[in-house]
């Protein structure tokens, strides 16, 4: 059964709202960061490699033309 009569009561948590909601908010933010940061790092590594590869291919073409 739902324990609170209204949305306000849920937010207030009988006077403990501050402690409960800060706990949950900060924890969830940290957990979101734990998932997002490795995904970002992965994209960064792949992005760097792609750029590097494109540069190598471009350099190859240029030296190829120069030899003609």
């Amino acid at each position: 059964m739902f324990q609170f009569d209204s949305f306000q009561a849920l937010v207030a948590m009988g006077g403990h709202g501050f402690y409960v909601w800060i706990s949950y908010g900060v924890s969830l933010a940290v957990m979101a960061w734990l998932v997002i940061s490795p995904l970002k790092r992965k994209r960064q590594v792949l992005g760097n490699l792609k750029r590097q590869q494109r540069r190598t291919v471009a350099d190859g073409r240029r030296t190829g033309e120069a030899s003609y």
Partner: protein
Amino acid sequence: MTFTQWFHRLGSPRWFYQASGKWLPWLAAATLILLVAGLVWGLGFAPADAKQGNSFRIIYIHVPAAFLALAGYYVMAVAGAIGLIWKMKLAEMAMRPAATLGAALTFISLFTGALWGKPTWGTYWVWDARITSMLVLFFLYLGVIALHYAYTSRDAATRAGAVLALVGTVNIPIIYKSVDWWYTLHQPATIKLTEAPTMHPAMFQPLVVMILGFYCFYALALILGLRAEILHRERRTRWVRELIGEDAV
């Protein structure tokens, strides 16, 4: 497949990267379902505690985070040991993501514990045995992370981190036993494997859901961290090059 073959395959970063890619959607779905269900149940439907009122709801974050902060230390220490003894690449790579994850979870349990302590004990912080040994755990995790940056040689850094992690395991039984050895402020364990929980089922059931959710979350975050670490360390290998080739075209 013999055990040695299996062990070698599991130790191959390439194999792990490809296999874990298939596990991720399932793991992410399980994590999301369990955490959302546990949060709604714990925040809205579990009855308030007779003595503590609604501040007790912090338990649904505090206890699972503390569980995983401790279990995660074993993961890190065992990975360190395997890396030291068998030089298994994947185990060496797992140490740093495991340390980051462990430090974050220890922080969550300390932070939520402080916020729970204020309305319950009247103070955010006290040098109680359980709390102090958890703070030591936090510094152990930070120490392992710091060692990774302290050495220029990756091998030396990995070895030093593994040794610190193994030495630090001494702290784990101390944390577990702290509430019994020095009975100060932190309450003793409510959940024991050997006994029935001393909690009402209506409060206990959402806690079980949250603990399961945190286990799934731990596995998910560790695998994501490990995959990023694998790509970074294997960036000069042929299979990673081919992976980008597929992506780029």
